[in-house]
């Protein structure tokens, strides 16, 4: 069934009474793509997924799957599989019965169900647990069972709603990598909801960043990281987040804390801006912006410095072996292409 699973959202609006959960959302997902819906809680990403699944109906707009309007199609007729954050396993059924359920509903002959269940279980490495009930599984095993139930049907779309958030940190990293491999090997379109930018960055082929009911940017993780569309995205993507400092733009330069830095912009004129500087893009140099080191967080191979640049707080990441002492005064700069400029009024990229 691969080659299927193309999704389009056309001006989707979702109202909860007076409150607009989604204010006209548009995006397209290509077949076979791993697409992340990223955003802070309450930004509308889960609502978007539920509308795609058919669990919620949009107030306005159209949902297209494989060029067919499914806006008013029942969830069960959309050929979509989903992994819930809580896994939603059926507690009275064994693992095998759980995985077999979607096939039974599809009225597959019994002789075909058993091998399909075994196969799906093997793919997520729980084929030795088929006779257990969900209550007898660990959190990670339950999660795998939910994955198996979703992949067994070979649906054209594979939805994941924060599937890793209930796992502990180590297991989350392992599962994250396996999830990506699994999706690649199945070649299925995956839509992945997360509030964890690192998850989205590592897993997604492309992602849509949600902010208060709107998509502010769609792109590959690298694109979004390199050219965030707005102050909100700039502050959301990257760890530690981008420094966003008030500054003055003058004829292609930006003045931060009294120091002039070159930008890639060449427009003449003068205005207030917000300058964005990634902590990792800052360099120590002679004759740059003067800064006092307030605090050092040593992370082993790197260190995060809290700098005080004449009252403006800036975070900087430096590599091991290059770390100044607390209280030292250093001088920093950034390359023109590493300086992002935003409009303080519209909060959008200039």
């Amino acid at each position, binding site marked *: 069934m691969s080659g299927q699973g193309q999704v389009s959202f056309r001006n989707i609006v979702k109202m909860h009474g007076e409150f607009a959960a989604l204010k006209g959302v548009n995006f397209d997902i290509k077949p076979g793509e791993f697409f992340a819906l990223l955003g802070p809680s309450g930004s509308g990403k889960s609502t978007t997924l539920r509308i795609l*699944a*058919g*669990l919620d109906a949009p107030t306005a707009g159209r949902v297209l799957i494989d060029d067919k309007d499914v806006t008013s199609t*029942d*969830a*069960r007729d*959309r050929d*979509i*599989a*989903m992994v*819930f*954050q*809580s*896994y*939603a*396993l*059926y*507690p*009275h059924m064994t693992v095998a019965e759980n995985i077999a*359920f*979607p096939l039974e*509903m*599809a009225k597959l002959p019994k002789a075909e169900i058993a091998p399909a269940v075994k196969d799906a279980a093997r793919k997520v490495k729980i084929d030795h647990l088929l006779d257990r*009930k*969900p*209550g*007898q*599984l660990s*959190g990670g095993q*339950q*999660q795998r069972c939910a994955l198996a*139930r979703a992949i067994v*049907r070979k649906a054209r779309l594979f939805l994941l709603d924060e599937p890793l958030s*209930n796992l502990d940190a180590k297991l989350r990293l392992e599962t994250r990598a396996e999830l990506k491999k699994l999706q690649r090997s199945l070649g299925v379109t995956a839509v992945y909801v997360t509030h964890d930018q690192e998850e989205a960055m590592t897993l997604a082929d492309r992602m849509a960043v949600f902010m208060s009911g709107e998509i502010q940017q769609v792109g590959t993780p690298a694109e979004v990281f390199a050219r965030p569309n707005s102050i909100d995205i700039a502050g959301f993507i990257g760890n530690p987040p981008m420094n966003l400092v008030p500054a003055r733009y003058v004829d292609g330069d930006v003045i931060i804390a009294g120091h002039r830095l070159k930008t890639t912009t060449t427009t003449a004129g003068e205005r207030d801006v917000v300058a964005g500087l990634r902590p990792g893009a800052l360099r120590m140099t002679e004759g740059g912006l003067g800064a006092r080191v307030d605090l050092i967080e040593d992370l082993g191979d790197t260190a995060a410095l809290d700098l005080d640049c004449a009252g403006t707080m800036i975070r900087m990441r430096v590599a091991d072996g290059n770390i100044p002492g607390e209280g030292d005064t250093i001088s920093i700069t950034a390359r023109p292409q590493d300086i992002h400029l935003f409009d303080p009024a519209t909060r959008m990229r200039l």
Partner: protein
Amino acid sequence: MTAKRLRIIALLAISTVFLLAWAFPIVWSVMNSLKTDSDVLAYPPKLVFTPTWEAYRDVLFGSGSILPNLLSSVIISVGTTVVTMLMAVPAAYALARLRFRGKKFAGFYVLATQMLPPVGIIIPYFLVLRNIGWIDTYQGIILIYLSFSLPFAIWLLVSYFEDIPFEMEEAAYLDGASRLKTLWRIIIPQVRGGIAVTVVFVFLNAWNEFLFAVVLSGNTVRPVTVAMFNFVSVEQTLWAKLAAVSVLAMLPVVVLGVVAQKHIVKGLTVGAVKGGGRR
């Protein structure tokens, strides 16, 4: 002797006292049912006597056999239970899950019917049944019992349905199940504990009911609770037979309790949802 041991002995003693107080009427009934009429009335009461099945033989196979009455009770109780459950399960599901106009009012109405004193409505019920010609009929009694058992069963079941996470149903829809199939395959198996409890309560209420039965039944439909009363008359009370019928009437209740106990297990949903258990 350690303090712990003393405490256990004290606890055992106290629970024995409670157990005896609870068991006394049952033991007494069983004993009386095995006595002759003269032994029953002997004073001081005989604790040692020659047991006889005479009372049982009389009430079961004598001229005033209660077998038809036991059958009546079975028909009424099973009928009430089946009809109640058939209606209460979907109703409770709807109240727990669906959004519809007047839901709050419906919920309140269900509870409000439980607040009416039965004596207050027995005459209206009698008049209604008489007008439609259903006095002394099974459908009449079952209909009246439904008016109590249905709200009670719905009210009891709703909380069990509410314990099932929404996501469980949504998962089933996405797996391709219809609403009805979801209810049948996913929801009901998880509330079977609640259903078992409700069945027991509804059955017992119907089985033990006396007040409405005595007014609304007649010679055709006469449950055992009413028939029992025949052994009490102005001149005398046939204690041995009364006790025998009581014991017979108790048997199905005891059996049901023992059987249902196995099914009334809590925590069926444990592990279904991470962080699990009932919400």
